[in-house]
């Protein structure tokens, strides 16, 4: 009862505030309508990308300016419109309402709330299309963005302000990498934005539930343009993500945006362009599909301290078909981003998960985005792995090889084993450093391959119980000095002796 009275009160207030005076506007007419596209006549002063107002509060965007008509895309549903309907110019560009209240919420690309919590009206807005910051406003990337995934943080490190592409076939773990990274930003003061473009609603629901379970939704905004939404919403979704990211970046915060995935974004743009009869090029994509992604990804950067020192790190995802990275869209986005993480189905099915191919994955920021401790530990990792891969063919005949080659193969196999990581279990950077230190110092060489992941878990548990200060030290100093190494070696020899005793007992049991 009280709620209704409050509503009425608000209504009367708004009604009396309504100015019933002259209204000056420009109005045109819809000539033809269909598939989310409208051809409009009149409105001869409409501007490109201007927002148009259709009946029943539907908005559209001017896309084509032709001699005698305008081609506009209708944002959202168009089933209530018909030919002959009046269309008004708004003299505005598309904006999304922003505010810190968005954190923890699920919204659509227009800022409408999709979750069960009550909707909010936000005061500030940010334009969807914006020119990326210029050279003067930027600063080189030198702060790490810890993904919590050993394989990435050691060999393909990502920095705050970098764009790193995650590329692979379907079902190779691309979304998992992004979700693990978001989960790992829990106490890192990074606001995460997950943009779902053209995904199945069931997949998005699973992801949101996972984020909730790991307490990651409290620092994440989910923007959802799922497969059943119109192509115009799917086209706008990444730009909404970038606009919200820029709002937080202006305040000096660090933001992580994941675009999942840009392949479907390119499909939506292709659909709109073909319906507007724009000339098509390679693979039926319009001629400006490169510009579509370049202007989006260039907005991810690190601002210098004069402009607040904030950053946006972008993790775009591209899905390849049958491993074809030389197709049109993958090559486009590879040339835009500062590095790629290749995920291969062969590695995935061989049990190497995350299925990252370290040989062809690259991070153009590299060591500048790693703490000293990690650099010390991971320096030789890539070399060891590449040598292992070269000798891998001989691994099948390992009994016929000289001890040096055999040692390399054993070491490579153990490094590969320790780089495997379970889903949704990101590690803190100090745990990663300790884990990789075990492998590169050769302590794992004495342990059989099948027991390595178990040993890793037990070692980290052991340190957490008895030598917590080691982790603290690495975290604070960001370095691995000789003292810490000595303590780690002590703990390692202790645990190894346990293991060897266990092995001897097992052997005794087997013999008896």
């Amino acid at each position: 009862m009280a709620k209704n009275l409050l509503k009425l009160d608000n209504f009367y207030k708004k009604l009396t505030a309504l100015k019933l005076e002259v209204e000056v506007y420009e109005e045109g007419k819809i000539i033809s309508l269909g598939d989310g596209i409208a051809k409009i006549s009149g409105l001869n002063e409409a501007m490109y990308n201007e927002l148009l107002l259709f009946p029943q509060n539907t908005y559209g965007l001017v896309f084509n300016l032709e001699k005698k008509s305008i081609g506009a895309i209708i944002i959202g549903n168009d089933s209530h419109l018909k030919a002959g309907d009046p269309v008004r110019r708004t003299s505005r560009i598309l904006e999304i309402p922003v505010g810190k209240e968005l954190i923890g919420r699920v919204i659509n690309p227009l800022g409408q709330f999709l979750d069960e919590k009550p909707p909010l009206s936000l005061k500030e807005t940010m334009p969807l299309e914006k020119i990326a910051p210029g050279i003067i406003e930027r600063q080189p990337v030198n702060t790490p963005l810890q993904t919590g995934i050993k394989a990435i943080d050691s060999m393909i490190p990502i920095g705050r302000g970098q764009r790193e592409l995650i590329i692979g076939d379907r079902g190779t773990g691309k979304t998992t990498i992004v979700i693990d990274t978001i989960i790992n930003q829990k106490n890192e003061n990074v606001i995460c934005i997950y943009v779902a473009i053209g995904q199945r609603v069931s997949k998005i629901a699973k992801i949101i539930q996972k984020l909730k379970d790991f307490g990651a939704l409290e620092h994440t905004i989910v923007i959802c343009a799922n497969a059943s939404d119109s192509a115009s919403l799917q086209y706008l979704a990444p730009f909404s993500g970038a606009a919200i990211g820029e709002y937080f970046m202006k305040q000096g915060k660090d933001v992580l945006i994941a675009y999942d995935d840009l392949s479907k974004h390119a499909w939506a743009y292709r659909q709109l362009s073909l319906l507007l009869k724009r000339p098509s090029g390679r693979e039926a994509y319009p001629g400006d599909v490169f510009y579509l992604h370049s202007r989006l990804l260039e907005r991810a950067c690190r601002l210098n301290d004069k402009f607040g020192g904030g950053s946006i790190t972008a993790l775009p995802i591209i899905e390849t078909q049958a491993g074809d990275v030389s197709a049109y869209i993958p090559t486009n986005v590879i040339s835009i981003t500062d590095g790629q993480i290749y995920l291969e189905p062969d590695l995935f099915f061989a049990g190497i998960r995350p299925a990252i191919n370290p040989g062809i994955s690259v991070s153009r920021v590299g060591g500048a985005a790693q703490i000293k401790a990690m650099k010390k530990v991971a320096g030789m990792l890539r070399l060891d792995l590449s040598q292992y891969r070269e000798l891998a063919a001989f691994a099948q005949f390992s009994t016929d090889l000289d001890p040096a080659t055999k040692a390399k193969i054993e070491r490579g196999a153990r490094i590969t084993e320790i780089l495997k990581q379970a889903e949704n279990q990101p590690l803190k950077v100090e745990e990663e450093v300790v884990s990789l230190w075990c492998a590169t110092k050769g302590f794992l060489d004495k342990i059989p391959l099948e027991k390595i992941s178990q040993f890793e878990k037990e070692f980290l548990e052991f340190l957490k119980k008895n030598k917590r200060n080691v982790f603290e030290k690495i975290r604070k100093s960001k370095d691995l000095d000789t003292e810490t190494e000595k303590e780690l070696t002590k703990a390692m020899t202790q645990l190894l002796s346990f293991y060897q005793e266990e092995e001897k007992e097992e052997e005794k049991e087997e013999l008896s």
Partner: protein
Amino acid sequence: MRKKSKQKGLTPTKIIVYSVLALKKQDLKQLEKSLKKLLKINFVLENRIDEEIIGGLKIVSGSKIIDLSLQNQLNKIKKLMLNYG
């Protein structure tokens, strides 16, 4: 090649005034004067009857509209009411 008569300023643009009842000659003349002051272009005024606007005037020139009609004001109220459910 454009015909000379189609250049701006030489052919007056047509502005249509919609009203519910036919406007008297003096009212039309006064309207022309104020519009000339406001728009500063060469135009020709025509009065047409349109009952849909319910009351007031609606001045249309191509796509540009100056809407003083009652219909528009009622539509605004309708929009506000629909917003509040």
